[in-house]
């Protein structure tokens, strides 16, 4: 039993005791991208928003695209982990930590991109001091802050049992201060029946809460667009469409992270082909829904023949032709084919399909924001054509790269502090298996 626990702890905490050279090298690479982003940010602060591609018509650019994208990843992580937890899916155990970490890390990165858009950051405090409940921006501030607290509580609940295991495991070679931190964070958890009941019950409550909050919060984000009278945005379908798109991108990122963690930390024993197929099937189902929503959204706009909607769709099929095809055809068809045919369901194929789905979803966000802002109902008279069209600059690209780098770095830092797969869940699973073997004997 102790050997079993030792084996699991050693395998699932590869970076807690020592820091490998490859970890340091990879961290340095991400840090350099982050530094480039900081340089871009300093340039933007000193020279103003003129260094970005945002102008009079297209007032939202890559920053908002990244905001929606990261928030989508976060809500998808919350939805997937919450649903898997509530339905007690046994296969969830090795991957649920990845989804929980995705939720919290994305939730911290996403809103930062909003700050990059704001010209007068000194007025940011007014949102808190003088909130207007009738403003969708206020809904978003309330919803995101509520979501952050909920996700942190859910994540902490799943960590308590692991902290207790790390506290009690004498074979863990870490500094006494680190041990003390684990002891404090474990909150005196000794796996008594009542403590176990409290943890499980609280997790169930929070899982139900974060599912509801994730749906509401991402719908609120969609309503910021939906309640705006702009071609392509003013749609009743936007709430559920955004939620489905978020789950799609989130499922993609979970598969990619599963592949990376499996390769980098040699978790082949824990994250198996079965896990890839199960999450892959989820990707397939959501891809079908996402395709249906996308088709439904564009069909009604096209058939309605409203002049500006027609101009927008023409623009999507001319100026943004390749992006549109990649996002709404390739990004949906490839995952459907790869996961749809059992013979194609290999770990590599599913991971490639997930990468395509994720990139397709990012492009989808770009196509929701930029072409619409380039097609205003009330165009500014005699505007320079260059000011009407949007092209991202190196500043925006560097900050986008920095966002992705921070996402990776936070995952790497998390692997230094906590187990990358939930030890308590895995140990429970193996104990249950041992019990079953004993009973059968």
């Amino acid at each position: 039993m102790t050997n079993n626990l030792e084996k699991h702890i050693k395998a699932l905490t590869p970076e807690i005791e020592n820091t490998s050279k490859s970890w340091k090298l990879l961290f340095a690479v991400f840090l350099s991208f982050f530094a480039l982003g900081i340089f871009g940010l300093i340039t933007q602060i000193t020279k103003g928003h003129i260094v970005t591609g945002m102008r009079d018509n297209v007032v939202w650019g890559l920053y908002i695209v990244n905001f929606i994208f990261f928030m989508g990843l976060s809500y998808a992580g919350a939805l997937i982990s919450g649903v898997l937890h509530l339905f007690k899916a046994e296969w969830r155990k090795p991957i649920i930590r990845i989804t929980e970490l995705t939720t919290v890390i994305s939730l911290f990165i996403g809103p930062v991109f909003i700050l990059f858009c704001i010209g007068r950051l000194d007025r940011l405090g007014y949102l808190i001091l003088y909130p207007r409940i009738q403003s969708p921006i206020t809904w978003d501030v309330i919803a995101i802050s509520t979501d952050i607290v909920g996700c942190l509580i859910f994540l902490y609940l799943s960590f308590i049992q692991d902290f207790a295991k790390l506290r009690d495991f004498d074979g863990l070679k870490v500094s006494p201060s680190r041990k003390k931190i684990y002891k404090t964070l474990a909150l005196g958890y000794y796996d008594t029946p009542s403590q176990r009941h409290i943890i499980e019950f609280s997790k169930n409550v929070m899982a139900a809460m974060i599912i509801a909050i994730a749906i509401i919060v991402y719908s609120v984000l969609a309503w910021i667009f939906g309640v705006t009278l702009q071609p392509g945005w003013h749609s009743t379908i936007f709430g559920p469409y955004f939620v489905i798109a978020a789950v799609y991108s989130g499922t993609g990122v979970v598969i990619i992270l599963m592949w990376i963690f499996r390769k980098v930390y040699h978790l082949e024993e824990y994250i198996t082909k079965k896990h890839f197929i199960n999450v892959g099937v989820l990707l397939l189902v959501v891809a079908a829904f996402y395709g249906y929503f996308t088709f439904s959204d564009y069909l009604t706009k096209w058939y309605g023949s409203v002049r500006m909607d027609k101009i927008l769709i023409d623009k999507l099929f001319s100026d943004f032709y390749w992006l549109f095809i990649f996002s709404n055809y390739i990004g949906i068809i490839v995952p459907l084919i790869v996961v749809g045919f059992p013979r194609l369901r290999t770990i590599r194929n599913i991971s490639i399909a997930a990468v395509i789905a994720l990139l397709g979803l990012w492009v989808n966000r770009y196509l929701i924001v930029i072409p619409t802002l380039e097609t205003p109902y009330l165009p500014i008279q005699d505007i320079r054509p260059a000011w009407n069209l949007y092209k991202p600059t190196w500043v925006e690209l560097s900050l986008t790269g920095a966002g992705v780098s921070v996402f990776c770095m936070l995952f790497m830092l998390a692997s230094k502090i906590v187990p990358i797969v939930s030890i308590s869940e895995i140990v429970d699973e193996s104990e249950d298996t041992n019990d079953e073997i004993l009973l059968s004997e």
Partner: protein
Amino acid sequence: MKFLLSAMKTIYIISAMVLAFLVWPGFSASGQDKEKTEKHSPILAFTYLKNPDGSKTLSATASFIINRQIFPLSYCKLKFYCGEQELGILTSDKQGSAKLIIQPAVKLPKDEKGTLLFRNVYEGCDSVEKTESSISVRDLNLLLKFSEKDSIKSISLHAFELGEKGDTLPVNELPVNFMIKRMFTNLKIGDGTTDPKGYCSMDFKGVFPGDSLGNIFLLARVDDNDDYGNVESGEIKKWGVPTNPVSPFVKRELWTEIAPIWMIVTLIIMLTGVWAHYLYVVFNISRIRREGKKIEKLKEISQVEKLEAV
């Protein structure tokens, strides 16, 4: 294994063909490409309007037809002339339209009968032929007078041309429409024909909403006349009913003083529900801590007892 590989290849080839079909440029190309080599005959719609302030507006719209569909000649050069005098060159907008406004002070060349010959010329390009359109009009003046006697309001119009020496030449049997200017179009309130002295009048009856002060823009208009084209004359009068329009959108505007009650109630219910659950879970976590402390205390006691026993 071989079967698996061949099946995978087949599927990838089919997917590649589907995608190639989707991204093939012809998939999105319009029928216009086939027509590139032919030269199209353009249509040039040209109109003249004399405005109430005495200025003249020349409007031209250039287009061409392919397969019974009209396509505007966007961003093309349109030349405006009066007789042989060039008035200006304008670039048409996206809809193929261009407007030239001639101020009253500009002197325009007339022929011996006092006729103005306006011409609009499109020089053509590789795919569209050259074309031109013309309008000949005589300069008509409409003088409006408004009077109110014993609460009866009337509008009187004098239509005349100016002779070479500046003398007035009345225009007989000229059909005139009386209108009120509205946001999208003009509202007709009466019509008439000028007498041999060039006069025409009508009584102003009816109730018409004006702005907050009751102002309305009264207009006399000659429409598509063979000799004079389109001519307008008008004035703002306080003959309307003062109206303060109430926007139907005001109640749900972002800048209303307070959010609707339903929104506040919904928000309070949702936030209370969510945060109550959070607090409940935090309370549960504190129960774990309390129990943990008790266990740690028991452990310490048992360790002391063991030590004492030793």
